[in-house]
């Protein structure tokens, strides 16, 4: 039995017709795990709605017009900003802490130590970066990432 899986997202986003809503409600009245999933899912859905996204700092058109008309662009205008590795590593490590907690497994220790370094403002050494790569390679395994590309 699939419980409410197939209808969870539709329920949360209000896209179920009344009959389908009733069916979900009836199932949840009799099935404690699904009731809990639905309640917690609703809390998550609502909280997600309260996460703000920052507005762009400059209108997109500025850069787009410059790219469409390179002859008009002034020399010396800043080109593409690029990713900086320490920032990437810091991010990965913050994620590592979350993941480590979730797995309740080994990566946590490494992630925590490295995260402390990042927080203290230290840049990552090559060794630390290698640890990070290993952490990423071993810790994450999402089946959806496999076949589709």
């Amino acid at each position, binding site marked *: 039995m699939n419980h409410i*899986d*197939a209808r*969870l*997202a*539709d329920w*949360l*986003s209000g*896209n179920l017709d009344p009959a389908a809503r009733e069916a979900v409600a009836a199932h949840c009245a009799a099935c404690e795990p699904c009731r*809990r*999933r639905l309640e*917690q*899912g609703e*809390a*998550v*859905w609502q*909280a*997600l*709605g*309260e*996460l703000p*996204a*920052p*507005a*762009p*700092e*400059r*209108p*997109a*058109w500025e*850069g*787009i*017009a410059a*790219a*469409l008309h390179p002859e008009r662009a002034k020399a010396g205008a800043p080109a*593409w*900003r690029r*990713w900086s590795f320490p*920032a*990437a590593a*810091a*991010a*990965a490590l*913050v*994620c*590592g*802490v*979350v*993941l*480590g*907690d*979730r797995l309740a497994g080994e990566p*946590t220790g490494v992630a925590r130590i490295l995260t402390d370094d990042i*927080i203290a403002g230290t840049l990552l050494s090559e060794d630390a970066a290698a640890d990070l790569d290993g952490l*990423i390679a071993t810790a*994450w395994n*999402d089946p*959806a*990432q496999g076949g*589709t*590309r």
Partner: protein
Amino acid sequence: MNDDQLMTRIAAGEEAAFRLLVERWERQVHAFHWRMTGSREEAEDLTQDTFLKVHAHAGGYRPEGRFQSWLFRIAGNLARSWARRRKIIGWVRFDPDVHDRAGRGPAPDAVVAGDELRRRLQRALACLPPRQREALVLRRYHDLSQRDIAAAMGTSEGAVESLLVRALDTLRRELAPEPGAR
């Protein structure tokens, strides 16, 4: 003028129509890329790239009333190749002014409320596998149907459903203690 009409004009070379389209959609596209990358600067660059691709491919667009889905297919492709380029798929950067870098995993019995909940949720969202995050972001923040998400992500509706269910399960586990822990 609707999006399809604008696209027809853009394909005919009308720059004013393109500008109108950019101004109509830039906040949504920027917010999408921000949620996918966690970085305002990356989001701005990817937003620009997205619209340049819209412009370049305007001639191939079929005005069938599904512009948003088409737009987010371009945006999603760019976000995914961005993640691949960085070789840190599934791991995104946090803006220090937006995210809490010093955040730690919560105590198991912590009461989750308000700002703390938002912080944890933000972090958990950022740490979802990219395809789960993409499906959830498109559904929650851009109101795309499962069918449109499937079209945007080049996958089946069933696959989208599974991505959404897994994403939601991860987030709710992140935020709610298991019943035994209460």
